């Protein structure tokens, strides 16, 4: 795929990587657990690859370097907020340098199941400074599109319970002590996360997609937006 577009970084980027060398497309899907991110990505990959476009997928906690250790640390819930924030940043940077950047150099379409915004929002809800986070994630390339799948907290509860019959400890923000009841904590935490995303929206442009609708309707919507993006080439 010959590609005229290049990718700039939010900050200084990665030492030795020139933004002119980065082609391809970087498409980010954001949203809470149960907002349908992975289902949407799977359908988009089918559609793109059938159409002859090479894709690569990344997501949180998938790095070779630290994903196992990060999982272990979370199970014990022993890390403080700065440490956990930096650990996730390490996980992101490892995938950025080993998967995202090489794929963009090769002209692939990278589909990211969550990106720096979730990481920033989580840390902000835990009281970390926004300026600190912006500097930290100055290593990240600016995506071509960011879709935020917006679902009301009440609908998220229903979807998570029908899928897993339980609410995830971290997705309920149980470490924050909002409530001892996981149900109440989930609602409060998801509301706080939406606020953080709204705050981030001021700096980083997301396209908010109403994901209370059915999977197919949402996917059609996404395809239309992505087609426009690809046609620009």
């Amino acid at each position, binding site marked *: 795929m010959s590609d005229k577009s290049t990718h700039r970084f939010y*900050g*200084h980027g*990665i*030492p*030795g990587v020139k933004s002119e060398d980065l082609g391809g497309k970087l498409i980010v899907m954001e949203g809470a657990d149960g907002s349908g991110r992975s289902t949407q990505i799977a359908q988009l990959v089918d559609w793109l690859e059938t159409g002859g476009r090479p894709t690569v997928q990344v997501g949180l906690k998938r790095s*070779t*370097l*630290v994903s*196992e*250790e*990060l999982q*272990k*640390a979370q199970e014990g819930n*022993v*890390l*403080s*907020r*700065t*440490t956990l*924030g*930096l*650990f996730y*940043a*390490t996980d992101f*940077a*490892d995938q*950025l*340098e080993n998967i995202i950047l090489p794929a963009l150099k090769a002209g692939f379409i990278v589909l990211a199941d969550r990106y720096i915004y979730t990481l920033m929002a989580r840390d902000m809800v835990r009281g970390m400074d926004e300026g*600190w986070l912006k*500097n*930290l994630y*100055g*290593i990240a390339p600016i995506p071509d599109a960011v879709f935020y799948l917006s679902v009301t907290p009440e609908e998220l509860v229903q979807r998570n319970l029908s899928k897993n019959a339980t609410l995830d400890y971290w997705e309920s923000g149980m470490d924050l002590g909002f409530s001892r009841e996981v149900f109440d904590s989930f609602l409060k935490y998801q509301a706080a996360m939406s606020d953080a995303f709204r705050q981030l929206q001021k700096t980083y442009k997301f396209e908010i997609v109403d994901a209370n609708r059915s999977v197919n309707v949402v996917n059609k919507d996404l395809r239309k937006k992505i087609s426009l993006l690809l046609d620009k080439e």
Partner: protein
Amino acid sequence: MKTFAESNFPGRLIAVEGLDGSGKSTQIYLLKRWLEAEGIKVYFSEWNSSELVKSATSKGKKRELLTPTTFSLIHATDFADRYERHLVPLLRAGYIVLCDRYVFTAFARDVTRGCPPEWVRGNYSFACAPDLTMFFKADLDVSLNRILEGRPKLKFFEAGMDLRLSPDPYQSFKIFQGRILDQYLAMSKEFNFMIMDANQPVEKQQVIVRKLVSEHIDLKQFKRRSPLPLPPALTADRDHHHEGEEDKAA
């Protein structure tokens, strides 16, 4: 960057910095022995020692998975873990904390590897500055000889092999250490380093170290309180016991 004293911590933090082989670890060890003997609440913390992060760091180093960016971030993670779980509680409890290397090690090393200085400093900006930083400055050749004398097997990242400075690890180590020294010296004014002449004999340096510490920190504030008197019941019990033993002896 505010110091712990300026941030109203009851404790104080003393850091030593310098190249490998500058003798800083020996000096901070001797300082610790002295403070302990003086009955001062003291805790010693080393760079790169957080249990949780260690397995990821050693995997990254062994398998040479680290880039300048991930090298920097994983060390920041390690530091944050020690900072939040050990240093902050101890400093709030009025300890004197001794650090063999502090954030300046990252500032010097990561920038030498090509990370932008503002980015590295920003990442560490959650940490307060030491109340006293001693920089052990030895001639580059002296430090290099101390490390290289035994022809140790230099590790990949330790020798800066990732920077492709030279295919020979010893040559690479020399160039790498030289560049780190330049970085240290460039920041020494900004961060108030007390420059120590590390070419001097160990015991002479230690006299200066102890003098500097007592000038900068009012040590008597950090003495352990004398052991608490035992509660009355126990005291009586112990007296009783004591009498019993006397009886036996008699």
